């Protein structure tokens, strides 16, 4: 981290605790001044540039490449092809581990999706490499592309998402439906979406013998090390990754992608440092996406509006060569009480890249369908959507019957509804207009996301000068890990945050675990917390065992660490500074370590989720169909909030993504060629400022004694869930028209 100097946090009134303080991002100044070094900003001496040549067909073979033309182009150094590449120690199609997705590393001339890498041109300049790649002018043997979710032959995968069962149930849904007084059966379609992180996948690879130095954005450096180690037949510790900042990942940088590995291969082939940066359009294929779905919801309710059955079936697609099935139906497991719930998934294979985790995988997609169906059911029962949801409030997790570790959803409903003014909502649609004659509609959705935890380690040092050091190979994707984890470190070390040096973002530090599943603050944070506690305990041992110390004989349990001092719990006046303890012991510093993992006992006893309620106001032009979301209010409960400013940002970002899901995002695919026709941010629409005039996030107090010792749940993904459905429901409430295809576009509102 030598080249990246993090700003000290501004002075705040902290009342002894950093956790809970709305500190601004410690990397903020670096970022807005351009000082933050992202992977592609690195230029080691002797650097060459690699550019991918990618396929323009979705299925078939590369019959010919004009290698001579590419090689002859001035500046081109090498062209890496299936026939000319460094040997790998492992077949990239081998399923080497649970998250080892099959990669396209030029293993043969097959093309399995558009934008697949078919060659890599390495040159002295990026321009020469780009032109070299264009000169390859591939010829193909084309096979017809299979692009239609509804045309392909389907099957039933055993597992979906990260490996959860594809079908689950409790009770008898058919019986529940038969007994119902009111039934809703509806089908919802969602579109293929691409992560589109601002920063494209990039890598700068430098080989030194069998050692490898990489600058590359990663949401999971240890996993990347393991995967690369396997592919190249070198020990993982030979691979040094620097990933101090990511310009967003959203799941697409969780596993090392094919193009990143190709950058490493290219460096090996030429024996010089190589940089490879994906072009925007090249991100539409080899680095994952959210697959399209068709979801069928079957809801039954009795005459009083109590659900009798929830059936949620999802048809979705994986690639022709690997398995990732968007686990959309899982959204129905935990939200609404019902004596019968059945969820299932059906898969097809399309000639696309393999889909992948994309912010709130499953929950985002499933929630838009579930929340729409719930809204339809509330309407069918003649009930207010909030009343209906409260009527079906789940006191225990419906699918498992487990109690919740904590659940402040009722408070989310209350506080969100009050802030939004929900009580004055007319029940019937198409009842509200603004002064300009626009149709106005109000809708709501429930948000939920599981509170997960992975494994991580951290190392803490207290130094003789009274400062502390916390080291963990954690990942800041922009979410604020540099700040939030430093806050936990400060409290763990009993120091002011300005006294703590926080090192992170490189693979030679203790493994901070993957930044995904909204679990990074909990996972890395608990490791940091543990390391802090460990080093304090060691320090206390030193002091309490030393008769020259005022703490002599106090015993570990009787000591508190605060403000750089240890003092007796029973008499805080008696104590001394860390520096004094170390000084007297003649130590330059003292080290401790910590680790974190989910507690299996608590996990089997409790259902763990964050919750929220989102309220949306939309305006729709009655003649022209253009939609605008004029207000979003979300209230979320996610356990302990480490940094309310950053958490609010996560909720905002999630809610805006929900808007994007409901109204904008869609990969437009040419059915004939399999190419994505809007593979750029000009045409692949995401919200702009004018699309979000008002977003509010309410942080609802929640204490959770079971998820982990600090009570941290995740906040990174939940904002999408609930929001997308709330907007769809608001569109219905404005227009009286139920659109079940997402994104909702204006042509569906005007015919």
């Amino acid at each position, binding site marked *: 981290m030598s080249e990246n100097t993090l700003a000290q946090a501004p002075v705040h009134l902290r009342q002894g605790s950093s956790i809970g303080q709305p500190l601004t991002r410690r990397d903020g100044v670096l970022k807005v001044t351009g000082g933050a070094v992202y992977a592609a900003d690195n230029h080691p001496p002797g650097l060459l540039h690699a550019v991918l040549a990618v396929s323009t067909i979705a299925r078939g073979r590369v019959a010919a490449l004009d290698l001579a033309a590419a090689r002859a182009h001035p500046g081109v150094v090498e062209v890496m092809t299936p026939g000319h590449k460094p040997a790998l120690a492992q077949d990239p199609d081998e399923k080497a581990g649970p998250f080892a997705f099959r990669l396209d590393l030029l293993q043969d001339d097959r093309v399995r999706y558009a934008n697949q890498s078919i060659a890599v041109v390495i040159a002295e300049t990026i321009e020469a490499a780009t032109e070299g790649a264009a000169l390859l002018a591939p010829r193909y043997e084309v096979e017809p592309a299979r692009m239609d979710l509804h045309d392909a032959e389907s099957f039933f995968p055993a597992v979906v998402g990260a490996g959860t069962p594809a079908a689950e149930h409790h009770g008898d849904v058919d019986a529940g439906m038969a007994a119902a007084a009111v039934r809703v059966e509806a089908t919802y379609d969602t579109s293929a979406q691409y992560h589109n992180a601002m920063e494209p996948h990039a890598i700068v690879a430098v080989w030194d013998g069998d050692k490898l130095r990489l600058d590359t954005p990663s949401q999971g450096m240890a996993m990347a090390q393991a995967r690369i180690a396997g592919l190249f037949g070198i020990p993982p510790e030979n691979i040094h990754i620097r990933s101090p900042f990511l310009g967003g990942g959203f799941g697409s940088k969780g596993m090392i992608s094919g193009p990143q590995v190709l950058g490493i291969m290219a460096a090996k082939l030429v024996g010089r440092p190589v940089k490879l940066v994906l072009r925007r359009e090249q991100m539409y294929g080899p680095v994952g996406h959210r697959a399209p779905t068709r979801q069928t919801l079957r809801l039954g309710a009795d005459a009083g509006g109590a659900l009798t059955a929830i059936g949620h079936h999802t048809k979705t697609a994986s690639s022709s060569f690997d398995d990732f099935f968007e686990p959309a139906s899982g959204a129905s497991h935990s939200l609404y009480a019902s004596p019968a719930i059945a969820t299932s998934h059906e898969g097809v294979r399309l000639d696309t890249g393999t889909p992948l985790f994309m912010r709130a995988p499953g929950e985002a997609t499933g929630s838009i369908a579930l929340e729409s169906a719930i809204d339809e059911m509330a309407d069918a029962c003649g009930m207010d959507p909030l009343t209906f949801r409260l009527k079906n409030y789940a006191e225990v997790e419906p699918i498992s019957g487990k109690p919740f570790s904590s659940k402040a959803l009722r408070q989310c409903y209350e506080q969100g509804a009050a802030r939004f003014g929900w009580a004055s909502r007319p029940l019937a649609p198409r009842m509200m207009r603004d002064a300009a004659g626009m149709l106005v509609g109000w809708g709501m959705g429930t948000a939920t996301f599981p509170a997960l935890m992975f494994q991580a380690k951290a190392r803490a040092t207290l130094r003789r000068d009274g400062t502390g050091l916390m080291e963990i190979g954690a990942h800041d994707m922009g979410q604020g890990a540099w700040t939030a984890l430093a806050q936990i470190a400060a409290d763990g070390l009993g120091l002011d945050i300005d006294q703590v040096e926080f090192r992170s973002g490189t693979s030679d530090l203790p493994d901070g675990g993957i930044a995904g599943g909204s679990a990074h603050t909990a996972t890395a944070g608990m490791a940091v917390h543990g390391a802090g506690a460990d080093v304090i305990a060691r320090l206390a041992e030193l002091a309490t065992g030393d008769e020259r110390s005022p703490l002599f004989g106090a015993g570990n349990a009787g000591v508190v660490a605060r403000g750089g001092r240890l003092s007796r719990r029973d008499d805080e006046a008696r104590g001394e500074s860390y520096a004094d303890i170390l000084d007297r012991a003649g130590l330059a510093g003292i080290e401790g370590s910590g680790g974190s993992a989910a507690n299996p006992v608590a996990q089997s006893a409790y259902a763990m989720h964050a919750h929220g309620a989102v309220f949306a106001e939309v305006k729709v032009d009655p003649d*022209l169909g*253009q939609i605008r979301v004029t207000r979003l209010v979300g209230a979320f409960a996610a356990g302990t909030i480490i940094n309310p400013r950053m958490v609010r940002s996560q909720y905002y970002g999630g809610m805006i993504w929900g808007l994007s899901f409901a109204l904008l995002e869609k990969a437009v695919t040419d059915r004939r060629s399999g190419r994505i*026709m809007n593979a750029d941010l000009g045409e692949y*629409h995401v919200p702009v400022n004018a699309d979000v005039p008002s977003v509010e996030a309410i942080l609802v107090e929640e204490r959770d004694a079971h998820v982990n010792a600090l009570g941290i749940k995740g906040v990174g993904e939940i904002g999408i869930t609930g929001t997308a459905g709330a907007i769809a429901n608001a569109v219905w409430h404005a227009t009286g028209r139920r659109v079940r295809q997402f994104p909702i576009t204006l042509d569906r509102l005007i015919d």
Partner: protein
Amino acid sequence: MNRFDYIRPTTIPEAVAAASAPGAAYLAAGTNLVDLMKGGIARPSRLVDVGRLPGLSAIEHLPDGGVRIGALVRNADLAYDPGFARRFPAVAEALLSGASAQLRNAATVGGNLLQRTRCAYFHDVASACNKREPGAGCDARGGENRLHAVLGWSEGCIATHPSDFCVPLAAFNAIVEVAGATGHRDIPLEEFHLLPGETPERETLLAPGELILALRLPGTEAAFAAHARYLKVRERTSYAFAVVSAAAGLRLDGGRIAEARLALGGVALKPWRARAAEAALVGATPDEAAFRLAAEAALEAARPSGDNAFKIELARRILVRALTLAAAGTPARMPALPASPFAIGA
């Protein structure tokens, strides 16, 4: 990127001479051309950078009440010129509804006229496109063509012209002043862009090497200033090309329409002046019935070129709304969301 010459001429004749060579292209701000070069869609062998040519950056208010706009005037500078916005508010509104603030600050008015279609198949060099490669075919036919043309298209090309600025320019009889090897000439904007017909690769009346010097808006057209609007329906609130747009100007006299100006954007390969609709409005009272009739007249020849039938009815409704807004009067201040149905201040 391929190799190309870069020339920065200092006089107009020098520029014209340099750009008359085959494969040469003018470069203004490059917000369109450079993108196309990066994608391999445009591969000029010579760039003639006119960005610093003297004398092309002025906004001149003419004695007849008209305005002469140098080809290098930035989109934003024109939109925020108070005198201009007062006389031609719908043009200013159209400018401010296009692209983003950053792009408008850079983009020139000459470049705006000559921006290329956003047809995805034109931009995808692996697709067949008659415009890029005459005779290659048109992959937009039978492809993803929800936003393609409903007027004036041919079997050979169904693309649309993306400019917002050009729509009110067509409505308000703008003139394009150009300089070529044989001298200067004026081209009415309405005729400047060509429909695809059999030659979709021919996009404008410009001869090779001809340089746009300026645009003129005649003083007579300032008579519509009190009732002139631009309305643009988009798939997001801002920073998106038009699905369909319309410019409308009315000159009212004694409660009746004395004269009307009407053009559509996003429906054809050129800004679509709706002269029949204008004629239908003359003498009518400015009410919904008259507007609806005009809209019918404007779209009479429309037919879908793919999955885009919705654009025909949408275009009618946009015309009706634009006329309604124009009749209500030009707002005193530029709306916070220019040209949006959600315009505040509309």
